[in-house]
């Protein structure tokens, strides 16, 4: 009986210790936001820690949710892969561009389409053009594939090109979009250039320019967002992202550096 009580006390105190240990997370800087930016954010976090910075946690939850996390204080920094809306700017959010992402338009390698105008692209994704024959390719229904609502890529595409037809297939990562286009001769979709370059898909000129060339229209800023001016750990991380070391990581990810 007594031994048993002692056991109980021991277990209870262990539980208490565990709960007490919960008191503080070991993370020094919490980043949340765009999934498109997630790989870069993780690379930057690794590099930042390696360079002597605090422990950084990066969660890919989406641009809008990242801002929400920042607003509620769940995160110290948000990442977004679109521009801030005027309302968001009025709320006090400050976006600091750390890289440029190029949205590539990809089709199957067997598709003869070489280039599209922005107008054609808009008509394609709004569902106005339904057959590849209208664009001079062999006839066949167009299979659109897009990112999910809330994704920065999708919002940037909607902003730069136009609305997306509701019947469009949706996948929530660049990789699966590449996979889908690789499998289907009639598919067309948009994705980050870094992932598109992994191969298996053909990149289409937009308004006569290939993705990555100067003047290519589908470029969006990737930014770190602070609520008010950056300070403390968030500021240090931002400085690191803009430093030569940080910008090297940007280039490694297939993104365009800002410096």
């Amino acid at each position, binding site marked *: 009986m007594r031994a048993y009580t002692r056991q109980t006390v021991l277990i209870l105190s262990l539980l208490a210790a565990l709960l007490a240990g919960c008191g503080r997370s070991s993370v020094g800087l919490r980043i949340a936001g765009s999934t498109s930016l997630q790989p870069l954010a993780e690379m930057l976090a690794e590099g930042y820690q390696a360079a002597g910075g605090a422990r950084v946690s990066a969660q*890919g*939850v*989406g*641009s*809008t*949710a990242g801002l*929400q996390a920042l607003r509620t204080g769940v995160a110290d920094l948000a990442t977004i892969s679109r521009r801030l809306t005027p309302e968001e700017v009025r709320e006090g959010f400050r976006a600091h561009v750390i890289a440029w992402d190029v949205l590539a338009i990809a089709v199957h390698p067997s598709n003869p389409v070489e280039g599209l105008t922005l107008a054609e692209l808009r008509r394609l994704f709004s569902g106005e053009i339904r057959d590849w024959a209208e664009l001079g390719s062999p006839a066949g229904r167009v*299979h659109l*594939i897009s990112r*999910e*609502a*809330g*994704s920065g890529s999708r919002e940037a595409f*909607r902003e730069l090109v136009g609305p997306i037809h*509701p*019947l*469009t*297939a*949706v*996948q*929530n990562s660049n990789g*699966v979009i590449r*996979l*889908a286009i690789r*499998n*289907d*001769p*009639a*598919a067309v979709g948009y994705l980050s250039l870094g992932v598109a370059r992994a191969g298996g898909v053909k990149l289409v000129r937009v308004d006569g320019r290939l993705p990555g060339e100067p003047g290519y229209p589908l470029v969006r800023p990737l930014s770190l967002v602070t609520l008010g001016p950056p300070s403390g750990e968030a500021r240090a991380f931002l400085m690191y992202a803009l430093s030569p070391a940080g910008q090297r990581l940007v280039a490694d990810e297939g993104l365009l550096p800002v410096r």
Partner: protein
Amino acid sequence: MDVRDRLARAALAALAAVASAGVLLIALAVTVEGWPALPHLFGAVWSPEDGKFGVLPLLAGSALVTLGSLTLAVPAGIGLGLFLADVASPRLAGVVRPALQGMAAVPSVVFGFLGLNLIVPWISRVFGGLGFSLLAGCLVLAFMVLPTIAAVSEDALRAVDPALREGAYALGATPGQVAWRLLLPAAKSGLTAAVVLALGRALGETMAVLMVLGNAAAVPRSPLDPARTLTGNIALEMAYAAGRHREALFASGALLLLLNLAVTQAARLAAGGRAAR
């Protein structure tokens, strides 16, 4: 009563109360969070960017993928159950049964992963199109619920008195006739329970279908069209959602819970019918 006994009784009762409150808490949390969006769910278009939160396409997606997978898995699963209960030698059954049990234990994300890497490209190659489709979802889901149906059917068929089997054989029935005219009707309530159980699992499955279904928020018009389920929609968009969008997702969760409770209730009735036999 001993004092410690009373204490123990009170403490255990408290634990039981907490544990059984789980389902109520879930219902409460989901409903409270989703309440304001409830009136917005009755529409035919799900397009959060335009403030449209109609769950009809998602309901249709869930219903179609569930029914489609059961259409494939129920005959195969009951057939496998019959094979294990009536045809296979004990040694063969001893190999097939653990294999099925193992299959039931494989995490759903692995099924989704395999579907993404094997089934989706296969569909794209054979039927054309993206491959991400209702058909892919049905196939993956069918494989996932097959072991459940097979195991529960086997139990139900084994529960049929062996004397009945012998009686039917003694009348000159072929194995097929015994199965079709005697075993399956006699095990009907157990088999129904198997189907309803599978229905519940299929309806609630998230990751595997999310990965292969293509997730277009529209009612599919052919098995090769993409579709989106209630569950997949939550997993897909929850992370991004704020405001009304977030409420709508919670409300759709409440709807899913309601559907699921109905199915569970049906399962209990079916199982109850068997117990009464």
